[in-house]
């Protein structure tokens, strides 16, 4: 599949054909650094002076290069398709080869960076549980009511949170069997899926089967 480059994008990348191949190599390296660590505006100040060009064209050139790399990595386009897509820019063969090498060498790492940008839900950290029997309460004595209290610890990036849930043992055992069935089918699904999918486990809790512990303090 071919990349379709907008006119503006082609114009920005045109900067690369006006400079030495060494500069192109250096720009490539800087573009990858920017993708890994974020852009550094100081480069946009120092480089134009050295190259004797308008500072805007350096910035556009670098951003154009970064965009070219991220789009190519996003779609994992093949070598031939990359070369054909870049052909429209009318670069020399040497330059095209340089860009291709840049793409191939950094493809895997850029894909890893892109995978972290997807939105994520809080995921399972740990579970504490407790089995109790309610013997008496203020309104009613001589009871025998078993309850299971769960504290689900979740993690969302650096943030930890906890949810307290309470249920009675029959409903708890129904939840457990449905969780174990779902975890088995989830394991089968991840085995069948391609190796590029993320392997972080998703929380499998079904909140319809448990109710929150607000009546704990009745």
């Amino acid at each position, binding site marked *: 599949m071919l990349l379709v480059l907008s006119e503006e994008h082609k114009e920005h990348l045109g900067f690369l054909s006006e400079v030495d191949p060494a500069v192109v190599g250096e720009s490539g390296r800087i573009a990858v650094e920017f993708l890994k660590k974020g852009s550094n505006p100081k480069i946009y100040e120092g480089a134009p002076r050295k190259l004797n060009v308008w500072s805007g064209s350096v910035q556009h050139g670098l951003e154009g290069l970064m965009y070219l790399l991220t789009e190519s990595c996003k779609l994992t386009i093949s070598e031939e398709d990359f070369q054909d897509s870049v052909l429209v820019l009318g670069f020399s063969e040497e330059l095209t080869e340089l860009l291709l090498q840049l793409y191939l060498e950094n493809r895997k790492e850029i894909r890893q960076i892109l995978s972290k940008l997807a939105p994520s839900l809080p995921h399972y950290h740990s579970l*504490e*549980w*407790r089995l109790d029997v309610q*013997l*008496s309460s*203020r309104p009613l004595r001589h009871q025998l009511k078993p309850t299971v*209290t769960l*504290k689900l610890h979740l993690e969302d990036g650096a943030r930890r*949170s*906890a*949810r*307290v849930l309470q249920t009675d043992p029959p409903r708890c055992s129904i939840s457990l069997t449905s969780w174990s069935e779902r975890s088995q089918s989830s394991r089968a699904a991840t085995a069948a899926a391609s190796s590029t999918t993320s392997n972080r486990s998703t929380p499998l809790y079904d909140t319809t089967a448990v109710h929150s*512990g607000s009546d*704990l*303090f009745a």
Partner: protein
Amino acid sequence: MRFRFCGDLDCPDWVLAEMSTLARMSSVKMKLLCVQVIKDLLDEGIDYDKVSKLTSDAKFESGDIKASIAVLSFILSSAAKHDVDSDSLSSELQQLGLPKEHTTGLCKSYEDKHSALQEKLREISLRLGRLEAVNWRVDYTLSSSELKQVNEPTVQLKLQAQDPETDSTQTTVVSITADKFRVLLTELKQAQTMMNALQ
């Protein structure tokens, strides 16, 4: 194969794999390592300098040190959790391939600290909204903006409890009239009688 110290389940693969790591240490050093691990489990603080001295003879790398602490923590806390006696633990560990001298050392440490471990595990069991402190004060209201002669005693209770979800301390202050307080006290005494019957 079911193991009692694993709660009548299969022994995890990683535990089995680390038996050979433990066997690389001398049994004396391993017993001393057990003592350190138990101190860590009881929140008494683990001395990492001592640990690295103990493992240096066997030329453990940092990965090996972490693995041996992890496997000993697992064995000791899991055995305490399922209330396994020291003889059963000894025979199960030998079945997993831990040499006899090492097993004896481990089980002796376990037996010595068995009740302390269980007490600690009981303490850290899930409890929601733990009551941390209670403060009280009795006031006598003389007068107010509504009524010139009030002449009423009240109790003010300050309760500091742990929030169940965020684990931070929450303070609640309540003021109770004499009648309401009498009701509260009677109900709590009934609960106390029930608690005493269960002890």
